Structure formats: C-alpha cells, structure tokens
C-alpha cells in the first residue's frame, strides 16, 4: 500500500535552547523580547494595511483593519458570531470523531491482517487519491445542505489521514514483542490492548494531530459549497455581497479557531505521552 499522506515517523522533537554565553546572557534569549517583537510586527503590519487601504490600494480588494474590527464587533454584539461559530465547531468536531474512530478501527484491522490489507489496499489507494472536497456535490445530493453533509465531508478527509497513520503504526509493531506476550498466555484482545495499540499510539497521535486542521477544512468547504450557517457561510455570503471586510473577518475567526485546535491537541498529546506508563 502506498505510504501517501503518512506523516513523518513521530520522533519527539526537542527544540534545543539557543546556546548562550554564561557571562553575558543575550537579550534575544528572553521569551518576553521575542513576544514584544511579534507584537510590534503585528501592529506595524496592521498600521501599514490601514494606511495603504484607500490610499494605494482600493478598499474593495483589501478592506481595512478598522472596518474588519467593526464587522467582528457587529457580529459579536448581534450574536451572529456565536451562532455561526457553534455550527462550524459542531460539524468539525463530529466529523473529526467520526473520521478518527472509523479510520483508527480500519487501520487496526487492516494493519493486523495482511490478507485484508492485500484485498482492500488498491481500493483504499484509489479512493484516497480522489480529492475529497470533490465529493461535496454528491453529499449534498444525499443529505441536503444541513449538518450531516459537512460532517461526512470532514469525516472522509480525517478517515484517510488517521487510517494511514494507524495502519503504518500497527504494521511497524515489533513481532518479537507480540510473540513474547503470546507465550505469556495473552489472548488476541490482550495482545491488541497491551502491545499493538500502545506501540502504534505515537503514529495514531500524529495522524490525529495532522487531521484536525483538515476536519476544519472539510467543514468550511462544505459550508462554502452550500449552507445557511457556519463561518464558511459567513465568508461566502459576505463575498457575494462584495463585503470584503466581512470576508476578512470570517478568515480571522477561522485562523483563531484553527490555532485553538492545534494548541488543544498539543496539550492532550503532551499529557498523554507523559502518563503512558501504566
């Protein structure tokens, strides 16, 4: 089976602290300094944007930060923001769990059964090669423009990412570990629970982490295709009304949302790996 979309082997990467001279601690090593630089950079960028808009570039193309903030504030007080955010979040989370659970199960089964892997392999490769967002029209035909269609779109994308990583992880489990546990009298289920799953867990987590942003992509693409709610809908309908500020405001919300997801999984991963002693 082709290793497409399989993430790099999950090697825990430790970022070495920059070397520093013990006698003269450099200003650059202080986190607060980097943070300040980032803040200055951001403010400078926004200021440049604000100045450029209407002066050098037509606001129709780039809007301006003050207008975008205004739009965000308007959505916030009207309650629109929460409503649409909730819809997108719901689609993403359900889609993620549906895809992750089915992908994990399929990866586990096919990873342990060379015969099943041989039989299903070509089909999985073929379906995986298909750009999943192209399935959106089909899912609209099946389910209409409501929640299930977005869940399915997000789920299909997540499925393959988690499936391939789990599959690879399960296949790379050391056979000697399995054999030794079998001589201790382990039943099939115990081998899976005590050896295969823990051994493949790093791979599975890699699959889960990379698929979180893709779940969001699935949900938002679904919304952009056809919907009446969600951040994707906000962006699309703003664009339809030539409201550039609204488009940028929607993108800003998405950026924050994606960053939150990434941070959340990083947190879960750190805590799980640390307590994997049992």
């Amino acid at each position, binding site marked *: 089976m082709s290793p497409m979309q399989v993430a790099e082997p999950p090697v825990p990467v430790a970022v070495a602290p920059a070397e520093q001279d013990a006698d003269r601690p450099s200003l650059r090593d202080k986190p607060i300094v980097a943070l300040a630089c980032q803040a200055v950079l951001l403010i400078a960028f926004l200021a440049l944007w604000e100045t450029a808009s209407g002066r050098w570039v037509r606001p129709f193309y780039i809007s301006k930060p003050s207008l975008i903030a205004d739009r965000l504030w308007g959505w916030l007080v009207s309650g629109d923001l929460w409503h649409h955010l909730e819809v997108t979040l719901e689609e993403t989370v359900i889609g993620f769990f549906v895809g992750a659970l089915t992908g994990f199960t399929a990866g586990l089964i096919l990873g342990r059964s060379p015969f099943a892997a041989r039989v299903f392999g070509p089909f999985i490769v073929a379906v995986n090669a298909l750009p999943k967002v192209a399935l959106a029209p089909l899912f609209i035909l099946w389910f209409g423009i409501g929640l299930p269609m977005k869940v399915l779109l997000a789920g299909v994308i997540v499925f393959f990412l988690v499936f391939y990583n789990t599959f690879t992880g399960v296949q790379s489990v*050391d056979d*000697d*570990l399995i*054999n*030794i*546990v*079998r*001589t*201790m*009298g*382990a039943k099939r289920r*115990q081998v899976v629970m*005590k*050896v295969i799953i*823990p*051994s493949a*867990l790093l791979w599975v987590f890699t699959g889960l982490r990379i698929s979180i942003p893709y779940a969001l992509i699935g949900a938002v693409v679904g919304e952009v295709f056809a919907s009446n709610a969600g951040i994707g809908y906000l962006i699309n309908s703003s664009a339809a009304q030539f409201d550039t500020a609204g488009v940028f405001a929607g993108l800003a919300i998405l950026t924050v949302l994606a960053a939150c997801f990434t941070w959340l999984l990083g947190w879960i991963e750190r805590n799980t790996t640390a307590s*994997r*002693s*049992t």
Partner: protein
Amino acid sequence: MQAVPPAKIEFRDVRKSFRRGGTVVEALGPISFHIRPGEFLALLGPSGCGKSTTLNMTAGLMRPSGGTVLFDGVPVTEVNTRVGYLTQRDTLLPWRSVAGNVAIPLEIQGWSGKRRDERVRQALVSVGLTDFAAHRPAELSGGMRRRVALARMLVSAPDTLLMDEPFGALDAQLKMVMQQQLLDVWQAERKTVLFVTHDLAEALMLADRVVVLGARPGRVKAAFEVALGRPRDVFSLQFEPSFVAMEKQLWELMRDDIAQGEAM
C-alpha cells in the same frame, strides 16, 4: 517394569526449512533429543545452525516442517504458554516502566492489584533492581535491561525456561554476574532449562548436559554430559583444571563446524 520418566521436552525427527525467495533453505535437522524434567540443557552450535528456531518451535511460535516437538509428552501445536522465553533481542515494552514490564505476565493471568505489586516487587528484589522500578527501559544499561527481562520471565513461575543467547551482548564480567544469578535461581527452583548459546564455556559452566549442533542445516553432532558438581561458582570454575580439560574436549568436537560456519 518401571516406566521411564517422561521427557519434559522431546524433539522427534524435527526439521525446519524456510522459503527464501524461490528457493527452500534447510535450516535445521532432522534432530532428535530430549530434555529431562529439571534438567539444565545447553544447546551449543555455530551461528545459523537453527538454535533459535529450535526454541521458537518449543515455544509454539513456529511449526516444524517435519517431525514433532513434544512438551510433557504432548505435541506442541499452538503457542506454548507454559514456558518462559528470554529472547536474544530486547523485548521489553519501551513505553512501560520496569515494574510495568515485569507485571505483564501477571496482568495477563489476571492477578489483582496488591498481590501483583507484591509479586513484582519480589521479582525486582531477586534481580537487584528495586531502585529502578519506575524507570523506563531506555534509561537502563544493557545489563539492567537483561535483568528486567529475566525478572519478567521468572515472575509468573513457568516450569520451563527457554533462553536464547540471553547474555550474548554483555561484556565478559557482566556476563559472569548474570550467569551466576541464573545459576542461583536455578539451584533454588530446579526448573527445566533449554539454553541456547554459541559460547562453549558458557554452555559448560551452566548446563548438566550439552547438545552440540553442527553447521546448517543443524544436526545433533554430540551430546556431552557435564561432570561438574553443583552448586557451581562461575568465577572459580573457569580456572579449574577439570573445567579447562572439558573445554578443550568440546572444542575438538566443534572445531570443524566452527570453520564451516565462518565460511558461510
């Protein structure tokens, strides 16, 4: 007429061949020999003569291509859960602590919390690793990992031990320490041991009987009773004239095959 006590493990015309690419490679046998209950038997032979294969078939992890492996008089047809197996390679679970690794056989057998913890603690005491119970295998030296594996094998008290060059990767001094530790355990519990090694001195040092396999496909070349008393002390034994003489005798037996093994 008194019945002969049944063999603990018996190999009857056991043969093993592997398919490599399009060709069939004869790896072992046919071999026939047996191990008595409570006997410490060393299987000695050059690299690639099928020693590990013999253990794998005894553990039921491999099927013979011909012949039968009998355990307590019954043919081994599935995984043999009555043996403790110490493999050549490290097979500790890297994500578990030392104590967690030693506890696996007990967990599988359904031992409960307190009783299990106590048994694990005893096992760690017996190999002198109590202070490292919470460490991960990656944090230990090679010798310590071997001792964890030894403790894990012994914790569930299997009546037969299969050991595949367990101390092969250790330096000479550490090897002796581990050999002595094994002998002490064996002296106390008198388990049946099938010990695979290519180290002639080790075989003599530990075993009651040495079965010598020839180069591939391995066949039994000789069986050698080790006429040394028990309990043994590996540190002093190595210099004793009787031991040295025996070593020489065994070297003569193996010489041709060692040269052949090199040529392969």
